[in-house]
């Protein structure tokens, strides 16, 4: 009986290995050295489900799956979600020195958490209900505060995020800029993989190291794809997970060497000898004369495990380009080495698995398919003199630099200043997307554009730069403001866009615990586009996005009331109100007389002393007593 129940499982795993039925899994780790001792690592996982008829219900779909994560599919089919993209990002990608974002920015997000999805629904309201269900479920799934996504931060992008304007498909998007990204977000992602982090490159994923880097960006893209080759209406799912990191290698290595922050011994200092230098002075240098040599397990904190392999597994090293973008000549390749070492008790005796020569023409090494036994590998990345020569080729430089900042130091109003710098020789078309919380009241009529090219500076006509604008005003506590601008940035120029806003006061209870820290604004998304050359002159023109970048998040301080005041305010305001009303009412209903008359009246009236009240009381008692007697 036991055997019978195990048998299908075994069968399944065999299927997985053979990638039958269209489902497949591929993983790739690519290592790209960046200038100044930085290393960019990218873990890429591609999971494709087997095809199935689009009409079939979710339980039958799931029973067909073996390597594809079932839990996600359930969620997608329950909420009619076609595409789902999640981005966890923290840190700053220095594009001035590191060049373009990996994957042309398509896999990186703004600081914090970003989420968008295409949901099939009959109405906007239904789409939103599904969206709420989706984010609440994903919140538990990824251990993130996605459940804070509500109508006050959800937008419906018009041009950005690959909106296709299909009938009945709604694109919803939200971001949580204040979300801290950490190890607990990593564990659920590893669980999505068929290898579960026990074999292949995912065995290198250790949260302690991954999140101790300069820039972390994790992307999850889940797409429903129509396949046209086989039966009608058959679809399959494609899940792409990317984990991008930028490590500062010397810093990572020194943390292992010196877990406690003790001063570095003099002989280990890497000094800049061009500057003043003696026994007491040392300017730190980024130049590593001896090159850098390190084991990958020092960076990742783990060794690569190889087990019964599922799908394709590769490690790639991309340093085949010099500063001019030419391929490194064959004789210089020795400066750049990736070695695999079978680890054993004593590393010295571990035998070399492959050296640079073992890489294929794409600079990749395929992890062996069938190891003799379960092994742990150690990879050594050696960057000799070449590490100092790593520069970003012109081709790898971003075409545009965008930065956004807040102007004004007052708490009740401010402005945005967005600078687009196009150093290239061609005009760039782009879409600027921005979603702002309702407590910033935008005055878009104050939008001004200043163009600065080479030496002259002048205000340009807005129409020349902004081709189209899609603006949705904010509603207090209900909807964020959404601004999308289709722009054209002229070549070799700096375009500065400014506009102003008022900051709203919130209610006492709406302020977060540390109100004076400020409120985080999510990053603006800039999508570079190329218009399709179509014969028809129909508007709007079709376009293809080719690069996406995001500005850094901003911190805005709102005016704060005194949080210790509620009772005082209620009392003081009410007192003033009552004082004025009481006086007015008194004046209006009383009769006015002169003081002499008043004194006369006072004399006539009985004196209201104690005897008077006793007499009054007596008469009352008497009257009631007499009454009861009569009865």
């Amino acid at each position, binding site marked *: 009986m036991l055997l019978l129940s195990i048998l299908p499982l075994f069968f399944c795993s065999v299927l997985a290995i053979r990638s039958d039925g269209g489902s497949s899994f591929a993983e790739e780790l690519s290592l790209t050295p960046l200038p100044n001792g930085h290393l960019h690592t990218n873990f890429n996982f591609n999971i494709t489900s087997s095809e199935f008829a689009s009409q079939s219900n979710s339980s039958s779909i799931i029973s067909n799956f073996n390597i594809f994560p079932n839990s996600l599919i359930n969620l997608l089919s329950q909420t009619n979600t076609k595409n789902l993209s999640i981005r966890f990002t923290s840190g700053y990608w220095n594009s001035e020195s590191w060049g373009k974002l990996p994957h042309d920015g398509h896999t990186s997000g703004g600081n914090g958490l970003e989420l968008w999805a295409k949901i099939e629904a009959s109405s906007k309201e239904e789409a939103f209900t599904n969206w709420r269900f989706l984010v609440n479920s994903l919140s538990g799934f990824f251990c993130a505060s996605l459940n804070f996504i509500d109508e006050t931060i959800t937008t419906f992008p018009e041009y950005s995020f690959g909106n296709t304007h299909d009938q009945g498909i709604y694109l919803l998007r939200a971001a949580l800029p204040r979300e801290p990204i950490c190890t607990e977000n990593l564990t659920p992602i590893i669980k999505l993989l068929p290898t579960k982090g026990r074999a292949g490159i995912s065995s290198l994923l250790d949260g302690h190291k991954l999140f101790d880097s300069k820039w972390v960006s994790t992307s999850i893209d889940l797409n429903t794809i129509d396949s046209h080759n086989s039966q009608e209406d058959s679809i399959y799912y494609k899940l792409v997970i990317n984990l991008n990191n930028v490590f500062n290698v010397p810093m990572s290595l020194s943390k292992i060497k010196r877990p406690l922050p003790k001063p570095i011994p003099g002989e280990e200092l890497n000094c800049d000898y061009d500057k003043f230098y003696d026994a007491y002075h040392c300017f730190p240098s980024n130049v590593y004369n001896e090159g850098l040599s390190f084991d990958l397990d020092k960076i990742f904190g783990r060794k690569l495990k190889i087990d019964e392999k599922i799908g394709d597994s590769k490690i790639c090293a991309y340093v085949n380009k010099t500063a001019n973008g030419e391929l490194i000549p064959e004789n210089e390749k020795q400066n750049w080495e990736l070695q695999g070492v079978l680890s054993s008790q004593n590393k010295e005796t571990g035998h070399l698995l492959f050296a640079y020569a073992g890489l294929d023409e794409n600079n990749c090494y395929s992890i062996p398919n069938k190891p003799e036994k379960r092994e742990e590998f150690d990879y050594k990345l050696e960057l000799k003199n070449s590490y100092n020569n790593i520069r970003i080729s012109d081709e790898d430089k971003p075409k545009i630099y965008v930065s956004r900042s807040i102007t004004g*130091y*007052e*708490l*009740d*109003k401010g402005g945005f200043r967005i600078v687009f710098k196009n150093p290239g020789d061609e005009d760039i078309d782009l879409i600027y997307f921005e979603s702002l919380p*309702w407590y910033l*009241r*935008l*005055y*878009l*009529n*104050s939008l001004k554009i200043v163009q600065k090219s080479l030496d002259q500076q002048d205000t340009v006509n807005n129409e020349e730069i902004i081709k189209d*604008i899609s*603006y*949705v*005003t*904010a*509603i*207090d506590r*209900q*909807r964020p*403001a959404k601004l999308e601008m289709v722009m054209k940035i002229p070549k070799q120029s700096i375009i500065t866009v400014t506009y102003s806003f*008022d900051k*709203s*006061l*919130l*209610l*006492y*209870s709406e302020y977060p615990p540390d109100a004076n820290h400020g409120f985080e604004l999510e990053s603006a998304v800039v999508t570079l586009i190329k218009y399709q050359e179509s014969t028809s002159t129909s508007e709007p023109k079709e376009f293809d996005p080719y690069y996406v970048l995001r500005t850094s998040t901003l911190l805005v301080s709102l*005016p*704060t*009331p*005194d949080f210790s*005041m*509620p009772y005082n*305010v*209620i009392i*003081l*305001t009410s007192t*003033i*109100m009552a*004082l*004025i*009303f009481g*006086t*007015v*009412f*008194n*004046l*209006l*209903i*009383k*009769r*006015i*007389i*002169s*003081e*002499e008359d*008043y004194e006369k*009246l006072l004399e006539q009236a009985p004196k209201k002393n104690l005897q008077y009240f006793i007499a009054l009381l007596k008469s009352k008692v008497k009257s009631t007593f007499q009454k009861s007697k009569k009865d």
Partner: protein
Amino acid sequence: MVKGYAFVLALGLALELIMTILFPSFSGFLDSAVEFSTPVTSWRSIEEGIFLLKHNIDPYDGGVVYHPPVLIKLFSQVKDLFGTNTTSWRIASGLIFQIADILTSIELIQISKKFLREYKNPKQGTYTVLIAIFYTFNPIKILSVLSNSSIIFSNLFIASTLYSMVVLENVALAAASLAMGTYLSYNPCFLLFPFIGMVINLKNHLSPCSSIIKSISVALIPFIATFTGLLYCSYIINNNNWNFLMATYGTNIFFTKINPNLGLWWYFFIEIFEFFSKFFIGVFNIYNLVYILPLTIRFQNSKFSNLQINNKYLIFPFVLSYGFVVLTKAYPTLNDLGFICQLLLLLVFQNDLKILKFLRYPIVSILLVIHAVILSPIFYYLWIFSGSGNSNFFYAINLVYSLGLGFMLIDFIWSYLSLEYLFEKNNGKEVDYDAKLRLTQI
């Protein structure tokens, strides 16, 4: 002497115009000062409305526009005349506000002149010029005009109401003006009660046996007709959508935009526990209205009202009611204070300056208001700009301002009541106003 006051007004207009031309950023600076600008009256909100209309975005679907559609539409039509010439548009728009303010002043001066004429005051001409100087060179007034606040139009129509009643004695026109004032800023609708009182009083004087129902209908029908007409126009202009009602009047009633201002509302509703918020919105709205009826009723049938020389025009409850509306409304500004001072001057001249003799503590209340007016920008600066003070500073000044304005109004009531006492005591015969009076109330 007509030339005299016209000259003063022209001088004031020229001064304001020169300031608009010479200091382009000054009006923007005033427009962002909390003392002169609130979400419901600010000029930048009108400009945003024009911008949204131009881009075919519904200005009342959220956003920052709380002005009635007709106003926005009119301004956008005017702006179209100037095309892309921003400088001339800036000056022209400033000029529109300045002219509206001058018209307000002219109307109020005409009313004062009429009062002065009836008293056969020998110093009529001098007084007219003095009034004109007070109206035009009052620094609060100059600043509020330069701030391009839309409350100026509302004030113009309230002044027109009084002008139509007193000078023209045209009830229908007055009611229509009041309706336009109401349309522009909601709060003047409370003035309907004292206005009806005024109409009844006037009709009684013109034909003593006219029925009250007739007087009320004469006042109400033009008011309702104008107001509904304007609302319907707005509905048509706003693409057959009623959502502007919530954005314009709803904001005033439900106090949805909490912004620091000189009033009593804002800090209270920030600090109040959410659970009570709705209840207190109701309380504050009632408080806004609560002075109107007592004032109207108290002075409607008093003998004094029927005996004084200018007794045809019952403007005292009207002016005082508006004073209390300004004191208790959700979005008050210093513009309102300037206008109230103008209106109170009418009361002074209606009673041939005698009302000034019976003020109990004019120095205290005036100093309180001046103290608040001077300190409020300083305390706001400390809170918002330099961070060395907190919101309580500004709130304290709000309380002082309210107290000062409240005392000023209360003082006027007391003074008026004292006059009334004297009149009743002497049955309208000649009274010695200089005699020392010691009055009290029971």
